[in-house]
């Protein structure tokens, strides 16, 4: 089949599937049928994406555009499909992780009511459609459209258990924060069009070389990235998003959707790179997020929250790498991170499925009950910690090497690597080592094949993906290939091993109280518990927004409308006052006529 047709199918098939599972009641009410349909569809898109990846690797490039909106008889906005070395790998990552997650969900959520499951898989298909449409975008406008649609899917899937108030709040919060970032994104899009008259990737790349964009417009665009990819201080929605089902967290809030921000940075790198100042700001925000989120992760007790902050932190790495000019490093880390973080989330889901709790202090000793999950989670930990042989080692090393020229950033990056190893090691040790610390943990059981199968595949990828750094570089044309071990790599490795050692020391079976926060992290714990960032948002919503609404609501009812009512009131009262005159008795009227006549005559006499 022609590449154009394949590309179109990769985008459209999931949308059709969403239509079938969502709109045909027979399918929607049978959750397992909807799930099977949805999984098969996404597997089909996976196969097609792999074919496309092969063709892109062979140097094929496809660009198709159709008009979306006109302006003065010409084309204003377009919808298009683009296959090249950058979009192809992302297509595979998205459909692969989505396929694994959907298959996993079939088992993980099998106790859910059938009707809800139909809804669940409809949103999943909708997400795959939106994400693929984002990946194949030929222009900034289309990317923004798909960008908001994936945000919608995130909102719908976080709110999957809508009857739970916390889930509802988390979903709405995620939407609000994203909408805030997207408002800035929208302004940037408009400014870009006003300046360059185009949103097309290639055209924009050519034009920014001639006239670079201002820092403001680039940073506004970056604000969209900050909300989507959970960069400080717009990261607040991501930890709350863990209210959604765990497979959703794996797909949207770890592997693919949150990475869309980084994808945007890579896709439009020339635009960002055209303004060096903006790029530097981006790097600092990224590295600060990496450190901040890693520190926060060290004191979390909920395994999903640990992973959520860890995602924040890793995204910070990617953003910092782009900020330092390392688009290949960022994109490669995005890919490996997608595999190992999805694996970690699915493994965490497997634990939660077995233990019926998210709390790490309530786990322990799971090694004896869930041997496969232990191994798989362990692979994920080693990958994210950056142990040689695992994919995270290669990609993180690329990232850190990019930061070498900026000493402070580089040091913070290394420190974060150590912290990452520590908190992931801590989560691993608390969950699997030692003795069971609750009934749930004591009666845990291994998950079924539908759940472990996808995890095994992701684990294999989490190991081997790292060895494809050079082919990846050639495919994407992002930088010269060539992996080599440097001082940075050795330092990062030493710190990672140190982090893992510290985790074993403080939280291992020999520790006095494995779940306790060690003394040196007490200030972090206190700061995290204070929740300053969240409280600031709470304040701006409750006091500023609702306060303004209340004032304006009052003004409208009593002042603006008050003037209108005043007219009405005057008319009513005036009528009531004049009614006294209208007595209806003839003598009164005759009297009035006489008085009037006399008055007129008198006036005529005096005036005349």
């Amino acid at each position, binding site marked *: 089949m022609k590449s154009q047709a394949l590309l179109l199918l990769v985008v459209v098939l999931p949308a059709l599937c969403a239509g079938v599972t969502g709109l045909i009641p027979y399918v929607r009410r049978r959750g397992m049928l909807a799930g099977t349909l949805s999984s098969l569809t996404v597997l089909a898109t996976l196969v097609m994406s792999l074919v496309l990846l092969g063709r892109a690797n062979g140097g094929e490039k496809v660009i198709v555009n159709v008009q979306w*909106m006109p302006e*003065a008889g010409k084309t204003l906005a377009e919808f298009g499909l683009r296959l090249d070395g950058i979009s192809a790998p992302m297509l595979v990552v998205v459909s692969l992780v989505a396929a694994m997650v959907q298959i996993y969900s079939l088992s993980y959520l099998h106790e859910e009511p059938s009707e809800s499951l139909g809804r669940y898989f409809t949103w999943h298909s909708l997400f795959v459609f939106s994400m693929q449409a984002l990946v194949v975008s030929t222009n900034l406008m289309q990317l923004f459209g*798909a960008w908001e649609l994936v945000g*919608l899917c995130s909102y719908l899937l976080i709110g999957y258990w809508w009857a739970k108030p916390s889930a*509802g709040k988390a979903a709405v919060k995620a939407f609000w924060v994203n909408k805030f970032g997207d408002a800035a994104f*929208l302004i940037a899009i408009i400014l870009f069009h006003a300046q360059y008259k185009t949103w097309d990737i290639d055209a924009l790349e050519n034009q920014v070389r001639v006239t670079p964009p201002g820092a403001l417009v680039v940073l506004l665009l970056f604000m969209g990235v900050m909300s989507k990819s959970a960069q400080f201080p717009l990261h607040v929605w991501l930890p709350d998003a863990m209210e959604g089902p765990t497979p959703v967290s794996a797909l949207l809030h770890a592997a693919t959707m949150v990475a869309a921000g980084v994808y945007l940075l890579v896709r439009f790198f020339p635009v960002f790179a055209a303004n060096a100042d903006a790029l530097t700001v981006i790097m600092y925000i990224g590295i600060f997020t990496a450190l901040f989120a890693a520190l926060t992760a060290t004191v979390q007790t909920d395994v999903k929250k640990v992973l959520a902050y860890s995602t924040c932190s890793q995204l910070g790495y990617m953003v910092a790498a782009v900020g330092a000019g390392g688009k290949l490093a960022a994109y490669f880390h995005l890919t490996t991170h997608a595999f190992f973080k999805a694996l970690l989330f699915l493994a965490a889901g497997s634990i939660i499925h077995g233990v019926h709790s998210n709390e790490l202090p309530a786990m322990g000793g799971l090694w004896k009950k869930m041997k496969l999950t232990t191994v798989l989670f362990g692979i994920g930990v080693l990958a994210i910690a950056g142990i040689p042989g695992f994919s995270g080692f290669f990609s993180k090393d690329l990232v850190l090497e990019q930061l070498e020229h900026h000493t402070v950033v580089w040091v913070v990056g290394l420190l974060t690597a150590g912290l990452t190893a520590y908190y992931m090691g801590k989560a691993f040790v608390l969950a699997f080592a030692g003795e069971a610390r609750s009934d749930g943990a004591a009666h845990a059981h291994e998950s079924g094949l539908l759940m472990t199968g996808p995890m095994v595949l992701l684990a294999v990828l989490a190991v081997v993906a790292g060895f494809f750094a050079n082919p990846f570089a050639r495919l994407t044309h992002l930088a010269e290939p060539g992996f080599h071990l440097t001082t940075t790599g050795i330092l990062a490795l030493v710190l990672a091993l140190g982090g893992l050692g510290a985790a074993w020391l403080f939280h291992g079976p020999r520790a006095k109280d494995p779940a306790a926060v060690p003394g040196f992290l007490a200030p972090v714990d206190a700061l995290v518990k204070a929740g300053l960032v969240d409280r600031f948002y709470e304040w701006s919503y409750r006091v500023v*927004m609702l306060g303004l609404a209340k004032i304006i*609501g*009052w003004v409208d009812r009593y002042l603006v409308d008050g003037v209108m009512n005043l007219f009405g009131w005057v008319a*009513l009262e005036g009528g009531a006052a004049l009614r006294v005159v209208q007595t209806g008795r003839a003598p009164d009227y005759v009297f009035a006529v006489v008085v009037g006549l006399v008055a007129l005559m008198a006036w005529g006499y005096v005036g005349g």
Partner: protein
Amino acid sequence: MHLLTLIVLAPFIAAMVIIALPDRARAATRLVAITGAGVSLAGAIATILQYDLARGGLQMQKVVPLVPSLGISYAVAVDGWSLSLLLLTGIILFAGCWASWTVKDRDRDFYVLLLVLSAGVFGVFVSLDMFVFFLFYEIAVLPMYLLIGIWGSTKKVEIQGPLAPFLKRLDIGGREYAAMKLTLMLLMGSAFILVGILALYMAGGGKTFNMELLRGNMVMSRDTQLWVFPALWVGFGTLAGLFPFHTWSPDGHAAAPTAVSMLHAGVLMKLGAFGVIRVGMVMLPEGAQAWALVVGIVASINVVYGAFSAMSQKDLKYIIAYSSVSHMGVVMLGAATLTVSGWNGAVFQMFAHGIMTGAFFALVGLIYEKSHTRDVASMGGFAKFMPGISVVFTLGCLSSLGLPGTAGFVAEFLVFLGAYKSAHGWWMLPGILGAFITAIYVLKATRQIFWGPFPEGRFEHLEDARGTEWVAISMLAVCLVLFGFWPNLALTGVDKATVEYLSRVVGTSVAAAGPALVP
């Protein structure tokens, strides 16, 4: 028969047939009403298919002299704008007839008034003759008094504060109050419009009311334009919810029965905006240019102020009504930009907001019928029993906050783009701020109504939409998504008309402006 005349006459004929029907013929009444609406809708679609997009301009013109001595004639035609607005009116009227299925009390009279009103709306959108235009305009506005006064709902608004003793006397929130307020304020607007139209007529030498003919022989000095334009702006603007003359809208729409709210917020408010652009701006270029800044500022206030007001409301219908005030501000903002994108966006927003708010009022009607409350705070967990309604409501919210993939996005985006490219680039900011505030209050309302635990025992027999109730909301939902993904269905025609009319206003052709956009 001439297609446009058929569209205008079909609801009117249906109304006459209903009058002739016996009192108890409930099914027949509905059938006739839906047939009349259906003919108009089909006519609107046929008009779109027949319209030659490549040629553009006014087509299917028909002129029948009525009072030749005064230059009054029945002159109708369509352009790219009226195509979309005819379609909108057809859709909303058709959906509204289905949504009125449950009207039991004096339903014959109800349908008659509804249909007559719609005939007026269709008439306005196709009229070229300003006299007939005004006549249709009044036909569209006046039946509201009876529709709200007789079939409206009564819900007292709690009045607090120092002015309470005075306001209590006015029975705020009651249907008589709402009907009276709406009619009086709109009639005040009409008075302004009449002045404006007569001024235009006199400037043309008192020979014709036909806008196309007037254009050729009208001589109006800049000074005259400077006071005629605001008359038309305030006059038509009142119907478009122009701040500070918008206060009839929340009370009126909250008190009106479902189909009337749908038509009024969905279509009638567009008459106002359409009038401002088509008569005010296109006929008075110098006036429009001079007043653009004021129009834009007031529109910006509308957008933000309306959104904040909506946020402060507790009654679901008031929330939707205030959101209309905010969204109509987007239309006026687009108009004020005097740019192609802005005008395209303004007209598209008329369409998108009409569909969206129509869907909202239909949904609120359903929710109220089933739960007997409009107080958002007392609701919760409704998704359990009304999953279908909750999905369509959410879709409406998404269009309202301008999510890509819904019609609302296309409209708002074009307006914001136009706003930035206009002489006053900062107009974009209140627009985007308004969209953000909208996101806050619509999602909050959705969560309060449909999500969270279901309050057991408070609501009996809550159920999803059934049978005929599905017709209105599902067709409106389909339109929201269809025009969101494929805006060209309407936008190509709108763009044609915009180029032509805007060129007249700015004095140079806007078609060739700028280099080729995207190769």
